[in-house]
């Protein structure tokens, strides 16, 4: 899996690993970093990470180029992702985070679309069914990690399109 990952051109550009002082340049740089982090995590099916792991991961540490993004700059990238809705801190110390290559609202939308398409409004599903059931095998959200799924359903809940409930052996959701 890791070998098929295609690094963007910036990954081989040394200035990519220095936080640029020019504001306009920095904007482009951070956009490239955010995009890289999301596609990396998507391909490696990594939904959460600690900051320590991130520092040593090939994502921020290009051994061949002998450049690594310093931890303060990594923090800046993570904050950008958080602002965009793709990242959530899992603890108060900001040592580990949830990374969602699609924002919860986007996942929620996809799930609800499938529910409507298949005429299953007013049905109840377990969380497991949604992500691992046969019916959803062709859907993008198939195999989604629980933490992200939960947040997606919470987003739908906000829109009154779903309600998270407790079922026999865990949690489920009812769609409206």
């Amino acid at each position, binding site marked *: 899996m890791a070998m098929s990952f295609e690094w963007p*051109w*910036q990954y081989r*550009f*040394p*200035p990519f*690993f*220095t936080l*640029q*002082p*020019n504001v*306009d*340049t920095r904007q*482009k*740089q951070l956009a*490239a970093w955010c995009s890289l982090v999301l596609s990396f995590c998507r391909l490696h099916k990594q939904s959460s990470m600690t900051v320590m792991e991130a520092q040593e991961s090939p994502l921020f540490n290009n051994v061949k180029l*002998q*450049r690594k993004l310093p931890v303060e700059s990594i923090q800046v990238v993570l904050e950008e992702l958080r602002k965009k809705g793709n990242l959530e801190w899992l603890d108060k110390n900001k040592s580990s985070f949830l990374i969602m290559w699609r924002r919860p609202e986007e996942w929620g939308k996809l799930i609800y679309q499938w529910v409507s398409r298949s005429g299953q409004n007013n049905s109840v599903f377990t969380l497991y069914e949604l992500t691992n059931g046969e019916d959803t095998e062709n859907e993008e959200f198939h195999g989604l990690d629980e933490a992200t799924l939960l947040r997606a359903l919470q987003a739908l809940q906000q829109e009154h399109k779903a309600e998270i409930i407790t079922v026999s052996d865990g949690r489920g959701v009812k769609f409206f």
Partner: protein
Amino acid sequence: SAKIVVHLHPAPPNKEPGPFQSSKNSYIKLSFKEHGQIEFYRRLSEEMTQRRWENMPVSQALQTNRGPQPGRIRAVGIVGIERKLEEKRKETDKNISEAFEDLSKLMIKAKEMVELSKSIANKIKDKQGDITEDETIRFKSYLLSMGIANPVTRETCGSGTQYHMQLARQLAGILQAPLEERGGIMSLTEVYCLVNRARGMELLSPEDLVNACKMLEALQLPLRLRVFDSGVMVIELQSHKEEEMVASALETVSEKGSLTSEEFAKLVGMSVLLAKERLLLAEKMGHLCRDDSVEGLRFYPNLFMTQS
């Protein structure tokens, strides 16, 4: 080596305590490794004959019993030597402190002087009409020679004094040629050295130079003072367009892939200080970006902007 042997009489009963309680020898042997034995023998014999120690006043003799006294340290072996050294060190310390006492007194006086001159300067400012410009300038120069920056001068540096205006015109004349030789731009420190070297006497203070340079543009002279973001000050010919130089800097950097300030300076034939400022300006304008690592600071063409 030469030796002198001093035979001792048996100790009298009323003898005072000495370095040793007793000894099995009844003589002292003095060994002279290099020389000095002749002179020593002469002096020892003399003392032995004169016996000056027997004539010491009683009170003093009594005092020596009571151990080390200031000024009369008993040199008893190494401990005695150490004590003497310590005493000497304390004396030296005391002398130095006394010397600096005068200096701190001077500093107090100097403070009073500064206060006085400040109040005079302010009075001059208030009574501008009653005192001629000439006298004001003379007073200011006295203050400057004492190293006291005159608050009056600082306040007027915006509008400048006659002196600074004249100086600005002088500078424009002196600097035209050197600037052209150096590609139209020089750091203010280079200017300072150049101008003072040419003057030989009546050197300019850095403050006067800066104040004069601040007036260059206002007086519409063909040069100007420019301050970069980093705080570095330069003098530029009006005709010099640093922003245009940036375009050529970009070309140079692109040709070589990337450059440090030193490499760029060498290539273009500029001082490293000005080279760095040019690269920083190019970065500010978005043409270059930086790679800051343990290997140093390198500048690259800003591919973030030019590449998709």
